[in-house]
Structures are given as structure tokens and as C-alpha cells.
């Protein structure tokens, strides 16, 4: 592609300068996910010069991409081969990059059935806090040599090193996809989803907006038709799932703060002030609410879940605070991998 460039030498130089001077770096691509996490400080390291697809062989089901490659370009290349990233990472902006997708580790509506971004990471190249450009994992489906540093990078918000390249498992697109919507209460929807989850139904997305349950069926022609015959429902434009994923539904427009609740999938409807949208078949709930963070977190904790604040700058710790012992090991790991503390300090937690 035009503009493809291996710029890793310059990135390594910038990291090494930062190490020499103990200058914190703020790693960013297009900054589309800057609203997530704590407000970062430091000298900007822009990854977008390091871009391009390094290798892609559809029959191997693996693609290797540089971190500054636009996510849209990656999707386009996969589209052309009738393949996809099953975890449906949201972009939250036109310029979103592959590096940001890995660092934030966010997944879309198919996640409970397909797996998360982390689940599709096979290997990474990383510039480390010891000033080296290293390779972990690889381009094979199974690889248990050494510690799994590649998957650890997913969702680390750039706090452990600069991800320069990633190899991802990809899959063929399903032959058939059909979206439907059914009118039912959220209680009823959650009950149904718990039942359907125990049966081999080709559901690949399930969201309840307060009034209607939206379902996506994906698979072969036979299974999709059989499931549709059984479940019924009115046709739904498949663009709905993108709008949900990118927070373009009207639900997300309201002024109140946005919270993400990650819960055991069979959690009953939670009683919280504000409006709720149930996604991931029950395992992810979006909440628009003015309630106190401590209250929301307490309600989620009681059912074994956790909460992220999606409204930037609202509270000091948008990610759920960790138990003390676990935080100590986080700090210890950060200290080992980034001893000079240059990579996105404070982005994930103040202590990291």
C-alpha cells in the first residue's frame, strides 16, 4: 500500500532517548481512544509512521500488521479475502490504528461467542523498557514457548512497552448472517439468553435496548434458517451492530456519564439509576447514569463484575481499582518491564 513504511528504527531511537533522559512517553496513534483511562502525560510518541501489512496468507489464517496501520485498512484487506477479525474491535474514530486496538483490547458484539482481541493475538514485536526491539509469540496458532507476553500486551494501554507489530489469527466470514429484533422485556431477554446459551444456536450478537432484543445469527444457510424459524423476529438492518459497537446509537447520545459494566453473563437485571443497554448476551451492560462511581462499583462487585468509566476525566480511576495484593504484583511487573517508568505512566492506574 502507498505510505507503507518500516519506521521501527526511529521509534527505537525515540524510546532509547526517553530511557536515557527518563522522559515519560505518551504513546498514541490517532488518539481515538484517548478518552479511555486516566489522562496521560509525557512526550508524544506517534506510531502512525510505522505502518503497513507485513504478511498475510489467507489460507494460514494469520495476518501480521505494523502498529500504525489504520484499523480500517486492516479490515479492508481482510474483507477482500472474505475474512475478518472475529472480535470486532471498535474504532471510535476514523483514524484508529491497529496498535491502539491491541493496547486497549476492546472487543465488539461478537466477543462472548468468538473471543476477545487478546484471544486472537498470536505474536507481537515490542520495544521494551530495556531499550530493545524484541519478538514474542509468532505466526502460528499454537506456541507455548516462554511466557505469553504477546497476549499480556492486549489491554495493557501501552504501559509495558511499545507494541510495533502484531500477528493476529483471522477467520473466514460466516456464509450467512441475519439480524432480527424481538419485542420483550429485559428480564425475559436475559432468561431466554441463559437458556439459548446452553443450546447449539448460531447466535453471534445479542443486545437488549430496554424494549427489544436484537439478535444476530451467523453460520451456514441451514443453521441460520432453522434458528430464524424457531426464534422468529422482525428483520433488523445489520448496520445496527456497527452503530452499537461504535456508540452511535441514540442511547449513547445523552449527556449523563457512560459506564461499562462487565458481569457474569447470567446476571439478572441490575437495579441502578439511569438507563441501561444490555450487550454481549448479558455479559456487558452500558449504563448512562449520574450515580456515584462507588455505588455503581459496589453493585457490580456484589455480582462478581467490574466497572469502567467511559466519560473522560470524570473520576480519577476510570478502571476499577485493584485489590492491594494484585496491585503490588502489577507494580512489580511494571518495575521489571519498564524500570524507568517511561511507557504511558499513570494511564491505566496512578500507581503504574
Amino acid at each position, binding site marked *: 500500500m502507498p505510505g507503507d513504511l518500516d519506521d521501527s528504527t526511529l521509534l527505537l531511537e525515540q524510546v532509547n532517548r526517553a530511557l536515557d533522559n527518563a522522559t515519560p512517553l505518551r504513546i498514541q496513534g490517532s488518539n481515538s481512544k484517548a478518552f479511555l483511562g486516566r489522562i496521560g502525560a509525557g512526550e508524544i510518541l506517534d506510531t502512525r509512521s510505522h505502518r503497513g501489512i507485513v504478511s498475510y496468507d489467507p489460507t494460514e489464517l494469520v495476518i501480521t500488521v505494523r502498529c500504525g496501520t489504520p484499523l480500517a485498512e486492516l479490515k479492508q484487506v481482510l474483507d477482500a479475502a472474505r475474512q475478518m477479525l472475529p472480535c470486532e474491535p471498535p474504532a471510535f474514530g476514523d483514524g484508529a490504528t491497529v496498535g491502539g486496538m491491541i493496547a486497549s483490547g476492546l472487543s465488539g458484539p461478537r466477543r462472548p461467542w468468538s473471543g476477545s482481541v487478546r484471544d486472537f493475538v498470536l505474536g507481537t514485536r515490542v520495544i521494551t523498557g530495556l531499550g530493545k526491539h524484541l519478538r514474542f509469540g509468532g505466526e502460528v496458532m499454537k506456541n507455548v514457548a516462554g*511466557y505469553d*507476553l504477546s*497476549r*499480556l500486551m492486549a489491554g495493557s494501554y501501552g504501559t509495558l512497552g511499545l507494541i510495533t507489530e502484531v500477528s493476529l489469527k483471522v477467520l473466514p466470514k460466516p456464509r450467512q448472517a441475519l439480524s432480527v429484533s424481538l419485542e420483550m422485556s429485559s428480564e425475559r431477554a436475559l432468561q431466554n439468553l441463559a437458556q439459548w446459551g446452553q443450546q447449539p444456536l448460531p447466535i453471534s450478537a445479542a443486545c437488549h435496548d430496554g424494549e427489544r432484543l436484537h439478535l444476530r445469527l451467523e453460520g451456514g444457510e441451514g443453521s441460520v434458517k432453522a434458528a430464524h424459524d424457531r426464534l422468529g423476529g422482525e428483520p433488523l438492518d445489520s448496520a445496527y451492530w456497527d452503530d452499537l459497537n461504535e456508540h452511535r446509537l441514540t442511547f449513547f447520545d445523552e449527556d449523563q456519564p457512560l459506564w461499562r459494566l462487565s458481569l457474569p453473563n*447470567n446476571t439478572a437485571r441490575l437495579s441502578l439509576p439511569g438507563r441501561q443497554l444490555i450487550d454481549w448476551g448479558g455479559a456487558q451492560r452500558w449504563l448512562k447514569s449520574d450515580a456515584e462511581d462507588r455505588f455503581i462499583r459496589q453493585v457490580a462487585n456484589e455480582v*462478581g463484575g467490574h466497572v469502567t468509566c467511559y466519560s473522560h476525566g470524570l473520576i480519577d480511576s476510570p478502571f476499577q481499582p485493584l485489590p492491594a495484593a*494484585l496491585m503490588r504484583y502489577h507494580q512489580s511487573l511494571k518495575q521489571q518491564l519498564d524500570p524507568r517508568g517511561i511507557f504511558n505512566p499513570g494511564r491505566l492506574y496512578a500507581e503504574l
Partner: protein
Amino acid sequence: MNILYDERVDGALPDADKAGLLQALRGQMPELEILHQQEELKPYECDGLSAYRTTPMLVVLPRDIAQVQGVLKLCHQRQVPVVARGAGTGLSGGALPLEKGLLLVMARFNRILHIDPEARVARVQPGVRNLAISQAAAPYGLYYAPDPSSQIACSIGGNVAENAGGVHCLKYGLTVHNVLQVDILTVDGEHLTLGSNALDAPGLDLLALFTGSEGMLGVITEVTVKLLPKPQSAKVLLAAFDSVQKAGRAVGDIIAAGIIPGGLEMMDNLAIRAAEDFIHAGYPVDAEAILLCELDGVEADVHDDCTRVREVLEQAGATEVRLAKDEAERVRFWAGRKNAFPAVGRLSPDYYCMDGTIPRRELPGVLKAIAELSAEYNLRVANVFHAGDGNMHPLILFDANQPGELERAENLGGKILELCVKVGGSITGEHGVGREKINQMCAQFNSDELTLFHAVKAAFDPSGLLNPGKNIPTLHRCAEFGAMHVHAGQLPFPDLERF
């Protein structure tokens, strides 16, 4: 270079005071079962990699978490290395004991704590057998997907420690994809919960880091796994080929047709004949290679996919394509494959199982190179291959009673693994590094990468007491190993002291 722990290259271990430790354990935990006499320790001297044996200093078999915690705290205080062990079925020596270490056997933790069919999860103790989880979930129409060949015996704690795979990984993933939460005790006995009952957890993904960490970062005390609805239908096609190259290409063709089989396995002629003699699965013994392709899911889709795959296989030059006519035949087709290791074991007094992975497109070249190495080392090699995910299991046949044969088999195995690395693969897909592949780690990773691994270890176990010597080689070991592989006069790690 011998793989048993060698303090000169693997690092000095603290000198243990066996009598003192025994006394302290008995004093603090009178109920704890301890084995300390030579004849009691003998059964624990190896895991599934039985060619290598070391008698542990002590074996403890705790029954509750408080005992595990007590043992870890005491060993930490006294600086005694601890090797954790589950069912002991591992093939890489990950649970190989240490003369100066305590062996912590977790097999008594064999209770299934809770099955929640609505949440589709099972919470189990680490000593629960892999297959027992699926059996307990079966009444709800659910099962646990990863199915290593040893699934009737291997325990889930070991599965997590090794990130175990199986024959259905391409579609259903490895252990890491099927575990939600793991409880661990750190080296000094502190309890941590990694992951959660939701689909993710706050903070860094330590669950991913711990999965496959081979008991080097903590001791697993509880595991919550995901359960899946059992596929409604599963069908198996058996295709015969007159060359392994054609069979290899057919695998790519199936994927290119947009089909992800539940299982896709290849066997070469030696493996086919061995399995047929042993199991009478009905394999075509004249074929150079067979593919077993399992399609599972909803009835209608499986039926359509069978038709598509049959066409692909025929176009790829299969000499014969057979659909298992009923469930009994399907099970028989699989029995041949699942028993390929013991079947090959009947051909030879000993065999050595490799576990390299390669990008699938490299298969024809790698198989040819293995055949050449087999001739060079004068040892037969049977090939069994998780074709869908590129995981090879060459089985090297040898006789340990013939002087020098074990060493030849080791050297041949090492060459095969280095070949896998050279074509962009890995030395281990699912069996783990353990002690077995400790030298080949030096071929897959450079000294900076190994240094970072040691940094990860130091974050959780700074004194290096958990399973020392496994998984990550010291730079000294690599320097010694590298000295035998001098490239173009360039000694790797030139600044390191040699022994």
C-alpha cells in the same frame, strides 16, 4: 548436553536441610501427608517424560489450601525450591523434581466445586481431570472444549500451567481461550485471583501471562472454565493421499473454502500402519498420508460442509474419501488417531514425541527435511500432525538399551525443533518447554528476549524458588549450548563465562 538440572549452567540451588524442613512441616502441619523415604519418593521421580528422572528431596500431598499455603511459606522462609505437580502426565518434564527441592503434589484437589449451566462455567479444583469436567457438564448438554490426548488422566491445573491444546484447537482454542478465572498462591503463599467470572477483569491480563507459565510464577489452587453447548452433530471424513504434499495442500484448500473444521489431523504412512495394527480403525494402510476432517455444529451446516469438504478433497487428489457411516465408525476413526502414540510405541522399545509448530505452508518442506534427518540419524520417525493448526508431533523411534540411541534421538529431536524455528514456527505448540526443550529455547529466543522473560519471573518470584530450571534457560546454559553450534566462527554470547 544433558537436560537434568545442572547447577553449573542452571544456577546454584540453596543447600537444603531435609531433616530440618521435615521437622518444621510436621511441627506446623501435623495432618499434612509427607513422603520422605527413598522407596516412597521413587514413584514421583518423573512425569510423562519418563526418560528423565530425579528423586525429589520430599513429596507433600496437601488436602486443603491452608496446607499448600503453609508449605509455600515454610519453603520460602527456608529458601527451598518447590516443584508443583498435578497428574504428572506432562510430556516435557515440567514437573521433573529436584534433588534439592520439594515436590508439591496437587492431585488431592480433585473436587468439582460448582457447575452453573446458565452461566456456562465450571469451578473446579486444580487436580480435577480434564475429562471429568466434560462428564460432569454432560447432563446439561455442555462440555469443556480443550481435549489433550491425555484427557482421561491429565488434571486441569496442569492444563492451565502448560496451556494445553488438543485436536480441536483451530476452532475451539487452547486452554487460554477457555479459562475465565484462576486462583493462585504466590511463592510466599499469598492468594491472588486472576481473571473474573465476567469475560474480562480490570488491570493487566495476568491470567493470560499465567496460562502456560509452567508453574514458574505461582501455584494454581482453583480454576473456573467456560463450558460450551455440545455440537448437535459431528461427522468425520477420512481422505487418503498418495503423497504427504498433496495432503498438506488439501488442508490449505479446505481453509480457503471458508471452512473451519472442528478437527483436522494428518498421519503419515508409518503412523497409519502402526495405528491400524493396534486399533483396527479401518485406515487405508497403503496411503502415504491420511487426513481426518471432523465437521461439527448444527445438523444442516454439517451436512453442507461435508459435501463441500468432500469436493475439495477430491479435487486435491485424494485417492479415497470416506465419510464415517455412523457414530461407531466416527469414534473408531478418532481412536486410531488418539492412540497413535501408544500404537507407535508398539513398533519400538521407546519413542520420543516432538511438539513443534510451523506455518502450514511449510509442511511439505519440513516433512522432507525430517525424512532426510531420519536417514542421517538412522532412526525411524512417524509423523502425526494437528494439520489444522500447524502443530506437528514427529515420533522418533529408538531403543534406550542400545548405547547412544537416546542421545541420537535427542539430537535428532533437537534438529527437528530448530528446523521448526527456522521456518517461522515454534519449538512447542502444546506440550511446553519444561526441561525437555530448555536448550532449544536458546534457538527460538535471543538473549534480550530471554532477559525479559527472566524479568517477568523476577516480578513474581524474585528468589527463583518456583520450579527452577524449567521453561526459560539461563544465559549461561544458552552460551554452553551455543558453543556447540558455532556459526561462521561467531560464538553466541561471547561476553559470558564458559564452563
